[in-house]
């Protein structure tokens, strides 16, 4: 019972972590491209591309976690 009520919270925490990682990778990639000489005029375009990709990743993660996220508390096994 405990694990059933805990699962949505765990999924939410997981989602925050995953989106944090996605943010880090995308923002890092974007800053790197500009550091390497990409014209800053592409910044708004890049921002939108990354936002859309981030949104798609979010949808995927929500679906994936709801479907596959574990359900058993290790405590209940002993």
């Amino acid at each position, binding site marked *: 019972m405990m694990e059933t009520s*805990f699962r949505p919270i765990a999924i939410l925490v997981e989602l925050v*972590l*995953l989106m944090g990682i996605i943010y*880090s990778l995308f923002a*890092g990639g974007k800053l790197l491209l500009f550091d390497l000489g990409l014209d800053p005029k592409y910044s708004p375009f890049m921002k939108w591309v990354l936002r859309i990709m981030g949104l798609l990743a979010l949808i995927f993660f929500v679906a994936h976690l709801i479907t596959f*996220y*574990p*359900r*058993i508390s290790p405590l209940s096994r*002993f």
Partner: protein
Amino acid sequence: MDFENQLFWTRQEIYITNIFLPIVIGFLVFCMGLLALFILSFSRQHYRLWRLGKKENRFDQVGKRLRTVLAVTFANSGIGKEVYPGAMHFLIFWGTLLIFLGKIIRVFSFPVGLTNPPQILFLYASFLSEFGGVLTIIGVGLAVIRRYIVKPSRLDNKPERTLIFVWGFLLLITGYFIKGYRMAAVGVPIPSDWFLWAPVSYLVSKFILILTSDPLNELLIWHRALLHAIPASLLLAYFVVSHSPLQHLFLSPINIFFRSLKPKSVLPPLPDLEEAETFGVKEISEFTWKQLLDLEACTACGRCQDVCPAYLSQKPLSPKKMTQNLKEHLWREGPVLLSTLPEKRDPPPIIGTTVSEDELWACTACMACEEVCPVSIEQIVRNMDLRRYLVLMETKFPSGLRLVFKNLMNSQNPWGMGRGLRAEWAKPLGAGILSKGAERGILFWVGCAGSFDNRNMDVAISLVSILKSTGVPSWILGTEEGCCGDPARRTGNEYLFQTLAQANIEVLHKYGVKQIFTMCPHCFHTLKNEYPQFGGEFQVFHYTQLLADLLSKGTLKLTKPINKVITYHDSCYLGRGNQIYSAPRRILDAIPGLKRVEMERHGNRSFCCGAGGGRMWMEENIGTRINHIRTLQAIETKAALVATACPYCLTMLEDGIKEKGQQETLSAFDLSELVEQSIEPSVKESG
């Protein structure tokens, strides 16, 4: 070890073999590629840019340089001067170091059989990583509070800084998650003593959910491990290739290694003054390689801005912004220069595009920025190089300097007083002081202020009177003394400075001078630290050193009490320039009845009077007057007297007191005047 514990560690080892070993091997291979990328990136992004600059030798005293780098890197000695950011940096630095140390030991524990059953080294390594992670999280937490909640004005939160905090924090959390999952998914109870060696992961393991079968759980741990390893590898790649602030990890130690070992604000001479076609710095490649390295090493911590008298008095100069803007300029123009043939290069000038003239002339050369810089960036020489270009090549300088240059050229003093009048102040003191020659004792270098400025003539007379009372023989050059050249040098007129310096050195050599004491810290700094560049090697003292020495020997006795509260204003060129902080205070403390209190900014944090860097001779039309700020700081101490040991500071403080209408509550004195007041008249007469 009981059966369950044995099973736990065996299962841990299976996870390590099946999951972590391939990841670690992949990571090590990746690191080798990363090392190659780092070398390439370092060469292309940094080394090539530094090589654009002029040559400068910074490879002397390698041992001393290394020792400082180690002290600053591992003890965070420069950063620790401010408690909050110091503690924050210390926690992040040592926390991260412990994480890596623990991880490396754990990785190498596996092939040598220290993991099953776990040996003490492996257990300690686990604890080190866990503890390091906690330290780092606390440090990052402090940094986030400071940057995003407290928001000190000196910090700007650019996206790359936010990114590092988020990225780093996620790596720490996912690191704990991996271990937590590894413990939870094993299928047997976790050994109770494991809590001591991995407390955070142990707690995490109690709150996570697992799957129904071992193969699925193994897949789950694969997920967790990759969620940690991939972002960690990419963060390393980002660190290596980008211009991220994380690059301070190697740029700061390199800059500290190559720091100047000379006293601060010692300007290098311009070589071949007669032959050279250009002087000073017009465009970025005219800086030295070390000055270009300085730009890249700036971490934008803003400590310099916080102490800069120009910034704090609303002038257009922020040392941090100037350095950051020059860094952007280097990153923008450097690659263009490198990709153009030398004869076709036409780089934009710095002044007018990246640094404004007002910004440049606002600098008082007080060295406060250099004193607090944790990575030893040298701002003063850079500013003076830019001034040299403006003055010598463009003949552009604030209007007040025109007359000063003319007076220095014609009369060897900034006021344009007749040279024949230079010793008038000393005539009533008797012939002894005017008799010339090294055999007469120590030379008293009076300076222009002591020779021509009425208020400072009193100081010179006090000094002679004190020395007479002690029986220490001294003499002056009289009309043969010329301006030391400091006003010309700090305002960029190197040609005029060298002319004045060479003339003075010639006179000093003519009389066989060995020892000199000066009244003015600017003369002291110039004679002591800059005249040797032109063959003028003398033993130079400031009078406070001389008096402190006479006091300690008992030659000078101060008996007449002055029952007042006093505060001492440290002159920049005595203090930060030459580390003379205690001698003036020892003298004040020797005067009976005098109670010394300190201003909030004193010692190496002292606030400039506003006259340095040639500002004495320029109008101050923008913002608050710097001497007013300093006067208010002196008033805050509730002292009745403010003492200094510099003619510029004395003038600025007296003006500040008058302009603030505080003559009734506060009086400014030179330290020597107070010493003279404290000598019994009978002793003075006998001297």
